[in-house]
């Protein structure tokens, strides 16, 4: 059963998002504990990733000490900020609890594994 991965610094980001997405898609979620839409989005992702066929979910807490540069590189201005990573690159993204876009990302990730 696949679980959510938490990334706390640039090294972990390189390994778990950039490198990992070369083999299977990664859905990257920038969130904060105090953000209610983030919580909702997080709950959906936690549920869906359980039955993953290879794709992973990586979460970055914007309040963490060492993630500032990662958030800056992704120009995070509002949260939740969700990115679709494939082949080591970000292909798509959205901001806010957008249920339709979230479904799209999950379906895309699942079909990439087939």
């Amino acid at each position, binding site marked *: 059963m696949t679980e959510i991965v938490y990334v706390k610094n640039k090294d972990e980001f390189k390994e778990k998002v950039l490198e990992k997405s070369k083999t299977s898609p990664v859905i990257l979620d920038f969130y*904060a*504990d*105090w953000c209610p839409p983030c919580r909702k989005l997080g709950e959906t992702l936690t549920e869906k990733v359980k039955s993953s066929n290879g794709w992973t979910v990586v979460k970055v807490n*914007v*309040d963490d000490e060492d993630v*500032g540069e990662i958030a*800056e590189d992704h120009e995070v201005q*509002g949260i939740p900020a969700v990115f679709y990573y494939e082949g080591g690159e970000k292909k798509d993204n959205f901001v806010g609890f957008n249920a339709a876009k979230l479904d799209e990302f999950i379906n895309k990730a699942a079909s990439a594994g087939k």
Partner: protein
Amino acid sequence: MTEVKLIDTEAPETNHGYDFDLMVIGGGSGGLACGKAAISYSTEAKPLKVAICDFVKPSPPGTKWGLGGTCVNVGCIPKKLMHQAALLKEARSDATYFGWEGADLTHNWTTLRDNVNNHIKKLNFGYRTELAGKGIKYYNKLAKFVDAHTVELTKPGQEPEKVTARRFVVAVGGRPTYPDIPGAKEYGITSDDIFQLQRDPGKVLCIGASYVSLECAGFLTHVGKDVTVAIRSIPLRGFDQQMAGLVADYMEAHGTRLLRQCVPVKIEETGGDHKYSVTLQWPGLNKTKVEQYDTILFATGRSADIPELGLDAAGIKITDKGKIVVDQCERTSVPHIYAIGDVIEGGLELTPVAIQAGRQLAARLYAGATKLMDYINVPTTIFTPLEYGCVGYPEEDAKAKFGEDNLEVYHTNFTPLEWTLPGREDTACYCKLVCLKTEKEKVIGFHILSPNAGEITQGVALAMKLGVTKETFDDTIGIHPTVAETFTTMAITKSSGEAADTGGGC
């Protein structure tokens, strides 16, 4: 009259060779306002490089917080939210008389604390993204001057870096001071810690008679804590003393225990989880007593946060109380280094003042503006359970400056309509206008003790900025039924000797 040189011109504005045009040290109310205003004047033709440094040194108990300064993290914002928690308790008590039935409310400290802090974290995030969005370089590092144009930026676990700037604005604010008594730093907390307190405050001793002490004591009392305040001499020094007395009286009548002319001399651990013995002394009565508390909150004053700033290396002069000396253009003893906010000598320690100063300074530096700060008639409000709003002179200061014979003071007690059903006291709310007879009864002091005092006082501040007289107050039609309308019909003067209360019986 010597012409005031508005901006420093020793170095060129462009191609000066420094890393930044402007470096702001301190990301609080003043610093953020200044930095954001400065970058707004940046153009393609004349780009401005602006940086803001902000770093919070943990408090003795280890509390720290994010970008935004004192007001956002450990001042105005959490204070007002917790004050609201207290007001809601009063509203629940009153509600019964308006027909509401149901069980009484119980209070959960954890819920209040977490919700308040989640809001603050949201504000911290908002400021960080705002700075990034505006192209301001943000350093979450501690800045120290190594010379007049260079700061060294440090952060635990990281290599120090040196950065230079054409101009600096020092806006580092202040921190609470601990008195020099045994046990204070080891066992006491301050306003830096109360809003994030990880345990229920329990039985609280607030030390001090500042508005910080009284505001904290007030909301802690109303969310159900056993609260005592130890006041060394007078309440709310610097404020109108009649009003200060009324604020204290109301608090005493509503569950806060006040110990007057009383000081703590020693704090010891009684063993166990946050249990302390405080030795209290009444020097005038030669009396000493030991009392048990769970939380001891010191609110005995604040000092400018200048240690470790390297002011000597830059050549910045300070007073013997440690505040930075500035002229009316907020310039320090170093022409290209300015200072605003709580850190300066002779200012007012208020967020809106720092914000205004920051914005006006940026406008003078980069937009050719000439307006200087006006510290006259700055309104403020103390958010004790019954709020105290004021603008202008305390009555005693007006007397000292203009002479008692040149003043007419109008005053009255009043009862908000909403207090009638619950039968709340009719002698608590009070308002007075201090008027200057020699200038057609120009209103030079406004004081009100009432619910929503802040909302009411703001409008009066506007009028006083325009030099409003008592006659205009009288000519203004009131809005009925409100508390604010009281000041449109003030007829009783202190000099007449008539009673100010509106009678006690039915």
